[in-house]
């Protein structure tokens, strides 16, 4: 189940990396804002869970477009170091903004689906099942969007060869805005799906963010199947390591896996040849 969430967050990250070649360190904070937005809607306006999921995705998608335009676009031709640092600035900004807005308290997301059900001999709450199904649905939708639609094809074209894409008349500006929007919306979706199980708080994005980076390094940066597989692998590594070795060091296994991967195969499972 955690694997599904990692996959979704990593998917947004890998899309953005594939197009813009920037490690968006602030991705987890958009995930956190997604959770807060839907929490805000559900608690204050009593909107339906699914409606708020949708609204949160749209709002965060638009916010992603705005961030791309204001922060990353002016830096597109600058050295890569600069965009990382801008991302770190954005991370600090978003985190403290949410602290001012929502306070440092841990909040509970009112859950609608916490009845346990029995499925194939395993007891599982409906919400957990929803996370898995929802994540799978998003992954399939994204795949269809990229492979089957005209807009999706432009994203892939820019990822493969920006100059070539520009030559055939694709606007890179528009594609990067679009990608940023989609990536951020995916993070918001993942956050809303998982929020009823965990708590919602301003630093909730830090761990999924880092783990998403682990995932895309394991899977290969910019690779969509890599992100999905890497996400589930990481979920498994954590669950097995936590279960059989030590829960205290559960988070350590993820980063240990990363270091191992960096040593043995720096380009990841599906990475292209370039280091």
């Amino acid at each position, binding site marked *: 189940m955690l694997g599904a969430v990692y996959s979704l967050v990593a998917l947004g990250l890998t899309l953005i990396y594939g197009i813009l070649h920037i490690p968006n360190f602030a991705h987890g904070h958009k995930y956190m804002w997604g959770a807060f937005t839907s929490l805000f809607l559900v608690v204050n306006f009593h909107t339906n869970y699914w409606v708020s999921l949708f609204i949160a995705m749209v709002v965060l998608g638009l916010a992603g477009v705005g961030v791309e335009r204001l922060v990353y676009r002016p830096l597109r031709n600058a050295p890569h170091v600069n965009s990382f640092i801008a991302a770190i600035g954005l991370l600090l*900004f978003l*985190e403290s903004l949410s602290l001012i807005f929502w306070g440092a308290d841990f909040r509970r997301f009112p859950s609608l689906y916490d009845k346990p059900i029995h499925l194939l001999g395993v007891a599982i709450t409906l919400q957990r099942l929803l996370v898995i199904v929802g994540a799978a649905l998003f992954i399939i939708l994204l795949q269809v969007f990229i492979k089957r639609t005209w807009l999706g094809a432009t994203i892939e074209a820019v990822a493969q060869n920006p100059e070539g894409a520009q030559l055939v008349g694709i606007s890179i500006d528009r594609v990067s805005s679009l990608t940023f929007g989609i990536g951020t919306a995916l993070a918001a979706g993942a956050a809303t799906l998982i929020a009823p199980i965990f708590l919602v708080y301003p630093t909730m994005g830090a761990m999924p963010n880092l783990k998403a*980076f682990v995932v895309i390094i394991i899977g290969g940066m910019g690779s969509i199947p890599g992100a999905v597989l890497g996400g589930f692998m990481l979920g498994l590594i954590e669950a097995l390591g936590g279960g059989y070795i030590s829960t205290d060091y559960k988070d350590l296994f993820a980063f240990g896996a990363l270091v191992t991967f960096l040593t043995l195969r720096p380009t990841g499972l599906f990475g292209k040849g370039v280091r």
Partner: protein
Amino acid sequence: MNRMVRKWLILMILFIAVMIPLVVTNKYYMNILIMSGIWSIVALSLNLILGYTGQVNLAHGAFFGIGAYASALMMLKLNMSFWFALPLAAAIAGFFGFLIGLPALRTRGSYFAIGTLCFNIIVTLIVDRWEGLTEGARGLMGIPGPSPIPLPWGGELTFKTMAAQYYIVLGFLLLTIFVLRRIIRSLVGRTFQAIRGNEELAEAVGIHAMRTKILSFTISCFFAGVGGVLYASYIGFLSPELTDYHVSFDSLIYVMIGGVGTMVGPIIGTLLFVTLPETLHIAAEFRLLLYGLILMVMIIYLPRGIVGWMKGLMGRKRKQEAP
């Protein structure tokens, strides 16, 4: 600026720095100055790998923390004197840098940044969870300050007052500046900068890129460790937050705002960012908000930091004077 003016300026600044404790007696201001000194050492050491070798190291907080924890443990558990613990702890930080550099420096650009960031988290997690050694989240308390040095003509040199602490930090800051300056000006320093410019080209002219990067990384971590030791003995208390990646981000901010790849830049950046929020009395949460904003605006409009920007201005003026 010609040579003479520059020399006098440096001497003036040095003179002011030495005289400060005689003029400023307020403990609060002294504290700010000491902290800026310690963080300047950390920022300068980060600048070696980031500014001169061009590798974005996001694990600097971890090496700072390793230095701090190593010295504190040696002083507390092995009753080692500060003056032995300092070089040893810094060497331990450097050694960890070497070990991490071996796998991490094989990668480039964003991979390296993410790899080091993850290493930083591993270190924080271990420090937080290994309660038997590090006391975990409770932190290490009662770390002794620098031990007195017996003087050859009788009596001893003690370091109990704020002014003495200040001179220790100032001394190590000057030592760091001196050593790093010598390194950067040397042939080795040139190879660092060649790698920053273009790694393939550097290899083509016969520079062993991997070895050079590891050397730069190890030296940088060593000095981060020195900063950590000074911090530990000055504050006397350590907690896992000090190894956190926020420390890495902070030192990154100091370097970038001051001027990456310059000698004065990191010091100016640190002075600015340590003193300004203290004097303006900004609440902590707004401070980070502001940091984030400043960082984004700076990187878009002044990517070479304050010092880089001023150098650019002066260069333009000179061109106008002598066309």
